[in-house]
């Protein structure tokens, strides 16, 4: 151990906090892997800086993106964060699978502590910095378009949420280069994460990254809920909203009510660690069970925060690619609401084995099974939507079909876990790991990727390559089954989760199969990158400027692709659920407004980036006990908010003439475009105008 360096300035930083120094002093596989990961982060960051400088794009990046308050750009930036974090967490997943496959009867590649860091970051990232930003980004992008609004209710708050998410993601990446991450899993259970057992910086990184992420999600939830309640266009009653808007509303409500328990849990843990409080310690009246309750009061609704938007996505995708109205819209809305409410009543099933009475377990077991009912309703709704429809097996549809098969399977294993007596047998084994990956990969990830493929042409104006999309989809599906079906077997055979080394040689074939599966999943990600590259190169041939490549139903398809900053030149007046779809059948969906008007949009603002950078600094300083910087960071946030409250010149006008010019360009393109029948929708002929049969 080297000595602390300038403790007043750098807190508890020592030279051996750097993985490079550790690898130099002790060059074994474990340290070299850590140093390699650190080097990858540094090299990646340097590469981006050099690339942007070489292209001379800093000013563009700052004015067009980083300071933008446009909900569409903020949505895209959320998704970029999610994809970067997905890449990292996927690499970690592969490393964990590799470790278990080689560490049969020997210690394997990485040390147990390092393995624990891997599963902790993998879980924390996939939930908080992959699934959450991805779905928040999609909601941000789509909801205002779907409800016929020009913006969200609070554009600046929206940007602040994005930047706080980025700050949290930054704190997740930092321990790759400076210090170590928590070894306490994504749920960070004390007393293990208390200072007595874990005096290092790891749990503190976890606490502040998660706290920033949960505050960001609370803000996002408020913004989305208010946008949906208050900003719908004339005639857009709640029961006329597309289903994705409904699931977004339920997710937003869950965020408002379910993120605070997480904030409280991490804040109390921080008080324990920093100020010697005794909430969850072993001694002096601490009560660890209270943490379990707080955490899962967040943790279970969280499952539905990440799954409900995907249900909305599947509803849009299945209906569009079956050319049929969604079957049982009302029942889907009711089922969504039922799930949102029930999600608060089942948290105890995450710790059936932690000592409460059997009757209490029974109550929560029954509640858990009850939540399967509305979910089952939805599956039938999607099947009936496809029934006798004109089903096309496009990439998003393939994801939706894979989801329906896989999700039902995961639901059945969920019913097994919902029985407390059965849960006693398989809890804390790989059976559980297989179950929740079964739900989250099919329920969330497939949905997010389906949405990415489905709405990409709307956001960027050209379609993604179908062939690579299908290859990617096949990898995600085959990889999932190869990687996780063996884990059901291993779990039932008693293999504990989070095991860094395996002593039972009979597990070998199953672990090998799972390792191959992890590789195939990684190929799925690579295929996504190839798809993006190929699609970018071919974009001239796949433009859909007219805006409606899939014969869509909701309002987002009624405008240009990519949409103009102001979304709608004239706010739509809807009189039914499928207003645009119906207008296409009646013949005049693209009528220009009688006269164009000036449109007021929010000005760019540096407030959100400043708050993001200051919170990153404050979080990092708290981790390393650099008190001066922590105080400075917090003061900078408060000062920025107060200064901003004095600003009055926060809007700018897009003159009617500019609106008219943009709209005319688009309307001319629509007039020139050839209407495309559904069987040609994935060919270059599709310029974004749908042929309709009245």
């Amino acid at each position, binding site marked *: 151990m080297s000595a602390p360096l300038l403790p007043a300035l750098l807190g508890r930083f020592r030279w051996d906090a750097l993985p490079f120094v550790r690898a130099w002093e002790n060059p074994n596989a474990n340290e070299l892997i850590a140093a390699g990961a650190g080097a990858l982060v540094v090299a990646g960051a340097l590469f981006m800086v050099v690339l942007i400088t070489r292209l001379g794009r800093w000013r563009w990046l700052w004015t067009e993106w980083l300071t933008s308050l446009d909900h569409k750009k903020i949505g895209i930036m959320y998704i970029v964060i999610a994809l970067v974090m997905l890449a990292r967490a996927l690499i970690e997943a592969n490393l964990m699978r590799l470790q278990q496959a080689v560490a049969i009867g020997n210690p394997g590649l990485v040390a147990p502590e390092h393995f624990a860091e891997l599963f902790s970051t993998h879980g924390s990232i996939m939930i908080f910095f992959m699934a959450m930003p991805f779905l928040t980004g999609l909601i941000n992008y789509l909801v205002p378009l779907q409800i016929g609004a020009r913006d969200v*209710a*609070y554009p600046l708050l929206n940007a602040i949420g994005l930047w706080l998410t980025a700050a949290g993601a930054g704190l997740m990446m930092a321990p790759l280069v400076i210090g170590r991450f928590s070894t306490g899993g994504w749920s960070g259970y004390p007393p293990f994460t208390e200072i007595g057992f874990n005096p290092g910086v790891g749990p503190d990184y976890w606490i502040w990254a998660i706290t920033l992420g949960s505050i960001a999600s*609370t803000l996002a*939830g*408020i*913004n989305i*809920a*208010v946008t949906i*309640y*208050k*900003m*719908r266009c*004339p*005639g*857009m*009653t*709640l029961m006329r909203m597309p289903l994705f808007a409904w699931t977004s509303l339920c997710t937003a409500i869950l965020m*408002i*009510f379910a*993120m*605070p*328990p997480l*904030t*409280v849990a991490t804040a*109390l843990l921080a*008080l*324990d660690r920093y*100020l*010697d*409080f*005794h*909430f969850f310690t072993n*001694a*002096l*009246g*601490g*009560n660890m069970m*209270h943490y379990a309750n*707080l955490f899962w*009061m967040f943790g279970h609704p969280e499952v539905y925060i990440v799954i409900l938007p995907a249900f909305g996505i599947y509803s849009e995708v299945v209906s569009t690619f079956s050319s049929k109205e969604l079957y049982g819209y009302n029942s889907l809305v009711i089922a969504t609401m039922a799930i949102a409410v029930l999600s608060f009543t089942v948290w105890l099933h995450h710790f059936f084995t932690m000592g409460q009475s059997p009757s209490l377990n029974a109550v929560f077991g029954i509640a858990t099974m009850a939540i399967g009912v509305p979910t089952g309703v939805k599956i039938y709704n999607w099947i009936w939507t496809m029934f006798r429809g004109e089903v096309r097996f496009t990439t998003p549809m393939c994801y939706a079909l894979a989801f329906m098969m896989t999700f039902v399977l995961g639901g059945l294993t969920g019913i097994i876990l919902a029985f407390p007596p059965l849960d006693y047998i398989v809890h804390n084994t790989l059976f559980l790991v297989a179950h929740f990956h079964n739900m989250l990969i099919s329920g969330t990830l497939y949905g997010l990727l389906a949405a990415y493929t489905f709405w990409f042409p709307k956001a960027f104006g050209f379609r993604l390559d179908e062939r690579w999309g299908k290859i990617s989809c096949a990898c995600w599906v085959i990889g999932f089954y190869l990687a996780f079906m063996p884990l059901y077997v291993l779990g039932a055979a008693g293999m504990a989760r989070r095991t860094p080394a395996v002593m039972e040689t009979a597990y070998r074939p199953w672990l090998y199969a799972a390792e191959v599966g992890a590789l195939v999943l990684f190929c799925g990600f690579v295929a996504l990158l190839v798809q993006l590259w190929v699609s970018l190169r071919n974009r001239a041939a796949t433009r859909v400027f007219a805006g409606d490549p899939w014969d869509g139903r909701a309002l987002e398809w009624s405008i240009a692709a990519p949409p103009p900053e102001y979304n709608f030149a004239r706010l739509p007046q809807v009189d039914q659920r499928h207003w645009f779809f119906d207008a296409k059948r009646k013949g005049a969906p693209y009528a220009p407004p009688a006269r164009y008007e000036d449109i007021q949009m929010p000005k760019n603002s540096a407030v959100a980036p400043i708050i993001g950078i200051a919170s990153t600094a404050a979080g990092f300083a708290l981790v390393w006990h650099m008190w001066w910087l922590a105080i400075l960071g917090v003061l900078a946030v*408060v000062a920025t908010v*107060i200064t901003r*409250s*004095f600003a*009055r010149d926060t809007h700018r006008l897009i003159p009617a003439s500019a609106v008219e010019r943009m709209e005319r360009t688009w309307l001319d393109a629509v007039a020139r475009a050839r209407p495309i029948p559904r069987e040609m929708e994935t060919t270059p002929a599709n310029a974004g105008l749908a042929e309709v049969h009245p």
Partner: protein
Amino acid sequence: MTAGETKHPGLNLGSTDAQAHEAAGSALFGFWAFLMSDAVIFALLFATYGVMLPATAGGPTPASEYKIGPTFLETLVLLTSSLTYGLASIAMKHGAAQASIQTWLGLTLALGLLFLGLELHDFAGMIAHGATPMRSGFLSAFFALVPLHGLHVLAGSLWIVVMMAQLRIIGLDARVKINLLRLGLFWHFLDIIWIAIFSTVYLPGLIP
């Protein structure tokens, strides 16, 4: 429930300033949503307090630490500050002179700071005879819940200072009005939380 049909319930600007009234609808609705999420935080801290109440670890107990006199005084001070804030809101709604709004805001601020002073005095007394948050789970829970309310009052006081400055510099434009309405919600919310603290933390704690 489309735009225009629903208005912010409670003290709005109505016919006195129709334009700000319109904008206040969604601005204040969002603040209500924020307060709900803040209320969840307090609810969980109340639950934490309830769970940890027996965990005194042989140290100070509620009966040995709480005093009815100072807490009752604090209650009176804070409730009065809600009244003075209400009077500031009414002055703003009916277009009273800026000086009268400033006076009521200043009075609210003074009462808020007085409350904080009294509360800090209480805490200092507790800490002086060994009732620190490090002593037991019960005291940890107490010092998470009650000072968090105090921290909110501090934030509210800072907000009042900012609003008084904005009134002076900018005057009573729509955004200042809306922010004063938001601040009002916040301030009254803190009263409700305090009433819950007084009646579920202090009052039962005084029963030996």
